[in-house]
């Protein structure tokens, strides 16, 4: 069965890009354009991994991360952001990986692969 990824980003371009690229890699994808929508979606959809933007209007990624980890402890979350310096912020430490957004998706794809592999093993 395909691994299902939830893409959370307020930018339509990013959502579309991630969706197309990751589906091409063989994943199934779900889309949410805000933190609130993502939490709603997680209630009734089973996903294997969340790609989470940090800077979003309304509930930001750090807050979404906190709530996700509260409810679904083992669900891996990759934080995606334009800014490398969030890495140092305490609130982001609970994430499983941290990727600085780039038009080159190699790093993101590699991280997804690694995390899902680890998950399978455990």
């Amino acid at each position, binding site marked *: 069965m395909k691994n299902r990824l939830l893409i959370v980003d307020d*930018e339509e*371009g*990013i959502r*579309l*890009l991630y969706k*197309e*690229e990751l589906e091409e890699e063989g994943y199934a994808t779900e889309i949410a354009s805000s933190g609130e929508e993502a939490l709603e979606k997680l209630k009734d959809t089973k996903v294997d991994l969340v790609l989470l933007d940090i800077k979003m209007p309304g509930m930001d990624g750090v807050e979404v991360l906190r709530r996700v980890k509260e409810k679904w402890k083992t669900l891996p979350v990759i934080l995606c952001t*334009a*800014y*490398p*310096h969030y890495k*140092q912020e305490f609130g982001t430490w609970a994430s499983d990986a941290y990727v*600085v*957004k*780039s*038009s*080159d*998706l190699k790093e993101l794809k590699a991280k997804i692969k690694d995390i899902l592999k680890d998950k399978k093993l455990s």
Partner: protein
Amino acid sequence: MGYDILTKVIEITDADIELLRKLKKAARLLVREFPFDACAVYEWNDKEKYFENVASFGGRGRNVARYENNEGLPGRAMKLGRTLEAGANMGKGLVDEGLTGFGSALILPLKDGKNRFGALYLKAIKKTRPLTAKEKKLLHVIALQIASSIKSDRYIKSLDAAYGELNDIRVRLVNAEKLMALGELSAALAHEIKTPLVSIGGFASRLKKKFDSGSPYYPYVEHITREVVRLESIVSDILNYTNGKTPRFAKKDMNSIIDETLGVFEEAIKISKIAVRKSASNKPLPVMADEEQLKIAFDNLIANAIESMDSGGTLSVSAAKNGDWVIVEITDSGGGIEPELVSGIFDPFVTTKEHGTGLGLPITRKIITRHRGSIDVANDYGRGTTFRVKLPSADSGYAAHGKKTL
């Protein structure tokens, strides 16, 4: 002779002329009004502790140019704190060549309380009549007036210097404010640009996959993707520069930071045929470092050095402990920086390269400063450049987390 001489002295010392001209005029006045043939004025150099002959009148220049502390008659007069009268044979082993050819002399220390300003050295060729009590009193007052004239000159000079310094600081502040505004503006711009760039580049890469490399459209998409990568690196440079997060410090060995940074460039060094000369210390060089940031700083310096030597050269890297400091020097043989550009190399958006953002060195300096260090450059135009980074040694107690403050 009476009090009119005091009026004359005050006129001279109050005049709007250079101090040395005042002293010269005063020397001439003293020779005219008192039974002396020559007058030499000595100024006291308080920093290096000596008397220097700065003005004189008469005596055909037969004055000692300089007396060290406590030396000669000026030194003795100052030490005793009172006027000295000297005959040709002073005895007591005191040597003063300034007296050669003269029969008698009078030396007045120029002072005010504990502050030394100099000495007046009045000389007569033949032994003259003794001065009257009134003359002595007048000379005493004149010496005070001359001393206060030197004193106010010193005040004015230090005021001028302070004013100049203040003005420099003001200019630097205004520049810093401008740069800060510029930094904020660029950060905001970079924020907005980053995300659309990721989409543009990402979709261009997807398009590229749809064309084979023989397609006439292939170069177009390739061009787009390449330029996006360049723009992305500019944007992340800007975000790195404007990111004001406080560093996280831990004790690190400078040697290993350098080794790891050099390791990143192994390939580039080979390609550009650069010889690396490393003189590291055998002992560990501990610094309090945010390793990630410090590596960015040295990364920039080494990348610059390598870029300047695209047709080969020598890259010298040295690290050593010097007192409380760890000093790292990175020298290239890449021809140096054009002299008129040197003063601005640490300012944002100044670049000497065709494809630079002009943020590498500003980021480097910011990081070094956050580590309580400093960076400077020695530019040998035509030959090469040396960047010298000074970081407080973690052993010194004045490192980033040390308790001592400046």
